[in-house]
Every structure is written in C-alpha cells, then in structure tokens.
C-alpha cells in the first residue's frame, strides 16, 4: 500500500483509508457473527475433553431430540407450505387480479408490518383470537362451532402453525412480488394472440416461470419458521418441544446435562437453516437467469 504521491497525479489517500473504513465492519463480523458460530461448530465435534468426536452428532438421534427435530420440521413445513400457497394466492390477487390500484400498496405496507410483528405480542394476539376465551372462538361457539370440543387448541401444532402464518404469509408476499412483477405483460399478450385462454397462459407459462421463485421463497419461509422461538415460547411455554425451545432450555439450565450436545443441537439447527437458505439462493439465481 504505497502512500508516496507521484509528481504527475496526487494518489488519493490510498487504500489505507479504505481498509481502515471497512475494518470495523469486518472486526464486528468476525467477533459477533463468525466467531460465535464457529465456536459452536467446533464445540459440536468435541467431547468434554476437547478431543474430536462425532458422538454428539450421533446423539442428536436420541428419541427425545429426534422428536424435537421432527416437531420443528412439521411446524416449519406446514407453515412454509401453507404460507407459500396462501401468500402466492394473495400476491397474485393483489398484483394481477384487476383490483383497485390502492390495494397493492396497502397490502405491501401491511405485509411489511405484519412480517415484523412476530414474537411475544403476536402470541398474545392469537390467544386473544383463538384461545379458549378468544374472540373468534367465542363467535364460532355462538354459531354452533365449538373449536375446543373438536380438539383444537391454540397451544398445539395447528395453533402454532396458524399463528406462524401471520408473518409467513406477508413474508411470502414480499419475497414473491418481484417475481410476479417480472411476469411481463407482453407474455400474456403474446399468449392471447396465439389463442391461449387465461388458464392455459397460467398453466403453461406464468406458473412455470414463477415456480423457482415460489419454491425458493417457500424454503426461505421454512428456514424462518425453523429458527423462530419467541412466538412459540410465548404461546406454548416450554411444553411444545420444538428445537429452538429445547435449545433455549438447554442454554438456560443445561437440561441435557451435556454442553457439547447443546452445541450439536445448535449446529443441527444451523445446518438446516443454512441448507434451506442456500437452496433458496440457488433457485433465485436460476430464476434471475431466465428472466434476464
């Protein structure tokens, strides 16, 4: 990094300033993003004495933990799948349904808010809605439908899934909107000129084009749900044993009586969210390439 000014042209206070400028960012990233994660990664493959082992990973397979993962997978898949479909339907309706033009910005703004409205307040809101004493529960009972008699409970799988949809659907809408916008009107017009009906256009052109984006977004939703804890904790306490809650309990009170297993648990989560996000990015770049 030379700083000697040449006679003909003043060399700008060179890369030294630039490197100093970006240094805080990298130091921060190293200390508070990469290092903590790396520490867990290493710890997951160590035993109590620090020697390398795969035993922790193996012990993730024990029944109670496997159940946790399975539960997490179920909730994540359900909320991601439903969120993706419903979010897509709503986005298509708002963007291409021929609805009044003020609807789109309203829905987009609301999606921005709703996708951030997660955690404890959301849990409260749904308890007030579908809890045993909730408003909707009461309304439905008035018209003869007793949810809780039918086995529904806000504090279980479906309750959690429905609650998760509150931020999954808006997230889907926000992520998939650029892809829908990318459906050029000329494609629809060209299809029409060639004699295609609306249904044929959607079946043969629009949906296939959207598919990678929709799949990718669904994976994003999946990762999002898998790592979520605040909502679940506020809603179900520690009773509904998804992986984040198990991890929470482990961090708080070492319920597993094995710190390295705790690391493995965290790393297992990371592997799943990492893989989903990678797949999302891969699908997105493929979609971009097509829609150049």
């Amino acid at each position, binding site marked *: 990094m030379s700083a000697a000014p040449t006679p003909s042209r003043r060399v700008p206070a060179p890369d030294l300033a*630039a490197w100093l400028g*970006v240094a805080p*960012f990298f130091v921060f990233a190293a200390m508070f993003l990469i290092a903590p994660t790396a520490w867990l990664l290493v710890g997951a493959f160590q035993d109590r004495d620090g020697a390398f082992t795969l035993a922790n990973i193996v012990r993730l397979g024990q029944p109670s933990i496997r159940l946790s993962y399975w539960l997490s997978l179920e909730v994540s898949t359900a909320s991601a799948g439903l969120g993706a479909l419903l979010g897509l339907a709503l986005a298509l309706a708002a963007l291409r349904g021929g609805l009044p033009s003020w609807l789109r910005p309203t*829905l*987009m703004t609301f999606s921005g808010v709703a996708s951030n409205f997660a955690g*404890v307040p959301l849990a409260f809101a749904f308890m007030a809605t579908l809890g045993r004493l909730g408003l909707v529960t009461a309304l439905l009972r008035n018209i003869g439908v007793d949810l809780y008699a039918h086995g529904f409970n806000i504090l279980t799988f479906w309750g959690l899934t429905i609650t998760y949809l509150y931020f999954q659907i808006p997230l889907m809408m926000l992520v998939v909107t650029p892809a829908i916008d990318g459906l050029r009107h000329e494609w629809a017009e060209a299809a029409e000129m060639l004699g295609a009906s609306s249904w044929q256009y959607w079946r043969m052109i629009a949906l296939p084009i959207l598919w990678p984006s929709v799949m990718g977004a669904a994976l994003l939703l999946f990762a999002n749900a898998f*790592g979520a804890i*605040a909502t679940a904790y506020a809603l179900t306490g520690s009773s509904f044993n998804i992986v984040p809650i198990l991890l*929470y309990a482990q961090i708080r009170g070492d319920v597993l009586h094995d710190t390295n297993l705790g690391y493995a648990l*965290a790393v297992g989560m990371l592997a799943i969210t990492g893989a989903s996000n990678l797949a999302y990015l891969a699908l997105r770049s493929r979609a971009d390439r097509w829609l150049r």
Partner: protein
Amino acid sequence: MKRGHLGAWLAVALGGIYFLAPLVATFEFSLRMRRGEYSFDAYRVVFASGNFQASFLYSTIVALVTIVVAALIVVPAAYFVQLRLPRLRAIVEFITLLPLVIPAIVLVFGFIRLYGSSSALPLTATSLGTDALLTFGYVGLGLPYMYRSVDAGLRAIDVRTLTEAAESQGAGAATILFHIILPNIRSAILSGAFLTFAIVIGEFTFASLLDRPAFGPYLQLIGASRAYEPAALAVMAFALTWACLGLIQLVGGAPAPGVRR
C-alpha cells in the same frame, strides 16, 4: 390478463379477515379489564407500571445505541466497498446474509459460550459488558437491513462523483464521509434505523438469554401472569411497529421483509 376479479376479491377478503381478526380481537380483549364495560384501564395500568417504563426505556436506549453503532460500522464499509474495494462486495454481502441464516438463538448461544464468564473475553461478567454484548447482537440482527438500505442510498447519490469533487477541493476521507456523504444518505440511514428500532424494541431471544431487563422479556413475563395487560401491550407493540414502518415510508425507504420471529 383479465382474470375473474371474483377470485381475487375473495382472496383479498379472506386475507383481510385473517389479518384483521387478531388485531380486532386483541384490541377488544384489551378493553375488557373493567368488569362489564369497555375501558382503557389495561392501558392505564400498563403505562403506570414501573416495570413497563423501566424496560421500555432500557430497550429504547439499547436501540438507539445499536443504531449509532450500526451506522458507524455500515456507512464507511458500504462507502469504501462501493468506491475503492469493489472486490470485497461479495464477501460483505455474504456477511450481511449471515444474521438471516443463523437463527438468533444459535447466535446468542455462541455469544454466551464465547464471551461467558469462563472465556478469554468475559463480557457477561459485568452488567455493562452484557449490555454491550446485547447491543452487538442487535447490531447483527439489523445488519442486513441497515447495509442494504445504506448501500442503495449510496448508489442513488453517485458517490464517485461527489467524492471526486470533494477530493479535488482537498478534502480527506473522513471529512468526505461525515460532511458530504452522510448528510446525503440521511433517509437511507433513517430507514435502516427505524427498522432496527422495530426489531430491537420487542426482541426476546437475546434479551432473555442474556438476562437483560429489556422490553421483550417484560412482555413475556406479563403474558405469563396477567390477563388483560398483555393484550394492551400487543396492541401497543403493533402500533409501534406500524409507526416505525410508516416512518420508513415517509423518509423514502421501502418496507423490508422482517425476520424477528
């Protein structure tokens, strides 16, 4: 393509019901504190509560510090990457993706093990140290949005030309950054700031596991022990989130998909 508007209307109507019902239900529930009539008692009780005030104040302060630290980290980085170090862009953008991929609970777990009382840098040993750790955690959570916002803002103002103009007048890098670039990306920074604020205010995972007297854990506690106050708090939290995102729109940014689960 002219679609059956009916299907679209139906979808939007059902969506509207699903999204508005919880808000209505929560609001209605929050008004029921006084037996037999609707009142704002629950809100009054909450506002009067010392715990509410203390935890909200704590979270607000942490949020403000987070925003300042985030801006100090992100702005120079985004600036120099765009201007002088374009080859670093890929790795910088990868880093900004990390908080979205690494679940918060995993990250805070890492924090606790790495900076815990038995480690080389025992931040958790002191209250101030833990506060600092919390702040850095939040900087991380808001990083993707702050960076994206600032980066877009820089692109919009043609940094290169501004910098060259300033350099030709003899200004050094620090001067350029603080007196020329910063004022011009104010709205981008504000957008990132409002979103960070919304994220920090109600955040639970970090605050709870680091055992800090923040608003999130307070909400959780109230929910476990009281009936009507949680509803009032939920309504306020929603209003606050709406206000933050509304302010973002006002200063010219776009609402970003949120990941505060």
